[in-house]
């Protein structure tokens, strides 16, 4: 049975300092929601308020329509996986998994099947008698998730659970957590600063910055139609390019811009007055060196070339001194120090106004 979470004007203050500024959010039952944002944006604080580990300073937090602000953490029907795993080092894996159920006063006959079921789901049955120090990072992570599963919670919370793992294991655990979500069908809220994790795992991404929600949406919606420059820069890897530009003319169907010494016509109206400064955003993977793929953007002096095997990254500088990153498919023969011409498809260009909002 999946559960909904509703946040209404949620505020968090530490003394005089307000760190979460009135967050509104509706989490649909059964969704995998990822809170993403840079360090200090408030994503972990928000998660901890939902868990009941931090008091809520203002606003309402509802789970399945019931106000939870004053309900103790243990009675919210929530299980949480911590960044550090928070396994009890003096207990065996079995005891770690059983701790919550023993605390709830369940009998051994009820505890054992639940622990065994969780252990089977996570393939940790052979590890049950071991102590946490005898486990690898990935195994510890599984035990931490297992501890959440045995409690059969309404909502799973994950606080940067993969950040202590190496890159390969992180990819593997990412897949396993996504699979677990499909199998269990519970509402899951996951915090990360890694936008790749957010893009690959989420049904819905919540982008946070400075205690505000910048945008909520499906991963590709955020990628294709970022609401502002912050979201555009944060979502997508490598990061979106931003170039200084000037809006020259706008009419009902198109706009003319001057960018990096080039006049470019966009097939849509930009919401700004002619003559104003704007930011011209284009993702590295949407730039081509071939004239056939779009309009000429700028000549680029190649400063660095990275061959990744499946892609070639080119870092260059335009004639007016602005830097541009280009990501090309496959292995491209581009020499450092040479000059290439960047082309863009005008339909894939993003314009941001002076206040950062998409134009």
């Amino acid at each position, binding site marked *: 049975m999946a559960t909904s979470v509703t946040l209404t004007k949620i505020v968090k203050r530490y003394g005089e300092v307000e760190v979460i500024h009135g967050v509104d959010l509706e989490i649909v039952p059964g969704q995998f929601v990822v809170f993403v944002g840079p360090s200090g944006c408030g994503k972990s604080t928000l998660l901890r308020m939902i868990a009941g*580990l931090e008091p809520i300073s203002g606003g309402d937090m509802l789970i399945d329509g019931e106000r939870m602000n004053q309900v103790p*953490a243990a009675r919210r029907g929530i299980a*949480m996986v*911590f960044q550090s795993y928070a396994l*009890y080092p003096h207990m065996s894996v079995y005891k770690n998994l059983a*701790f919550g159920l023993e*605390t709830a006063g369940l009998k051994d006959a009820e505890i054992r099947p639940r622990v065994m079921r969780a252990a089977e789901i996570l393939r940790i049955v052979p590890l049950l008698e071991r102590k946490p120090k005898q486990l690898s990072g990935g195994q510890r992570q599984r035990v931490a998730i297992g501890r959440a599963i045995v409690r059969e919670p309404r909502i799973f919370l994950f606080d940067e659970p993969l950040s202590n793992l190496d890159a390969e294991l992180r990819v593997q655990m990412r897949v396993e957590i996504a699979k677990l979500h499909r199998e269990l069908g519970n509402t899951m809220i996951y915090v990360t600063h890694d936008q790749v994790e957010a893009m690959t795992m989420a049904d819905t991404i919540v982008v946070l910055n400075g205690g505000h929600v910048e945008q909520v949406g499906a991963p590709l919606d955020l990628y294709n139609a970022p609401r502002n420059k912050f979201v555009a820069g944060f979502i997508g890897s490598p990061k979106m390019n931003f170039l200084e530009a000037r809006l020259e003319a706008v009419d009902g169907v198109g706009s003319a811009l001057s960018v990096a010494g080039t006049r470019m016509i966009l097939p849509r109206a930009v919401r700004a007055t002619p003559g104003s400064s704007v930011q011209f955003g284009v993702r590295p993977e949407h730039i081509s060196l071939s004239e056939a793929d779009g309009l000429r953007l700028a000549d680029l002096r190649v400063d660095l070339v990275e061959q990744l095997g499946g892609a070639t990254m080119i870092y260059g500088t335009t004639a007016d001194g602005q830097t541009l990153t280009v990501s090309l498919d496959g292995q491209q023969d581009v020499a450092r120090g040479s000059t290439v011409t960047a082309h863009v498809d005008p339909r894939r260009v993003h314009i941001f106004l002076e206040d950062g909002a998409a134009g």
Partner: protein
Amino acid sequence: MTARADASIDIAAGRANRSVLSRFWERNGAGYMFLVPWLIGFFGLTLGPALISLYLSFTNFDLLREPVWVGTANYVRMVTADPKFAASMRVTFSFVLFSVPLKLCFALLVAVALNRGMRGLPLYRAVFYLPSLLGASVAIAVLWRQLFAADGLVNMFLANFGIVGPSWISNPNYSLWTLIVLSVWQFGSPMIIFLAGLRQIPADMYEAASLDGASRWRQFYKITLPLLTPVIFFNAVVQTIEAFKAFTPAFIISGGTGGPINSTLFYTLYLYQEAFAYFRMGYASALAWVLVVIVALFTGFAFLTSKFWVHYDD
């Protein structure tokens, strides 16, 4: 020709040796010079006297005449013909048995209370640590005498409730307890170590437990206590050794007699009497070595059992 060649080889080897020595001295000389005070202290004031006392424990020695070798006679006398040895053992073991657990419990209690993020923590920490700085001093032992005497502050306080208290330090039923209370009052040192240990326990362990619905008490005995066992172990060993070595309070409170009726005759006090009241240095040395063996056995036993109850994270 051959003899001259051999001589030149010897000279060359001598030069080589000298140069190796001088290189070694150049490289390490300063370090060894810095070590000299410690080496003098260790050999002259610790290891040397310890070995001499081991030798003396097999002799009769009164400081005036040459020591006379008596074999194991001192040790045999201790266990067969010395009721004061048995009495001092009883007193010392009682003191260790009660004062160490009580002091550790009290220290842990205060440390847990102080660890709850209260304001002015450094001040409280210093205030609670103060008795440990003063505790083993003669002045505090004298103060304790004033507190627990027949007309002392404790009885003045009890008189407010109509209770006529005994002279705690001259009553053999209570005198040892006054020393135990004095020892427990000096809980500052283990408390500071407990506090440091408590600080090492990650907060997310408690958060995970609170999400699991564990009460504060369950968190304490299921998480805090097991994770604190390395610190408890350390404190228990150190405090046990300290308790076996306790001397000053008993000496001051009983006026050096160990009375009344040997009720405060700590082992170290008895040892002192044998050495410096009766000048039986050989017998006193034997007593000292028995204490060393007892402390070593206790410490060894603690280490042996530690694998069953001390939880090390890694």
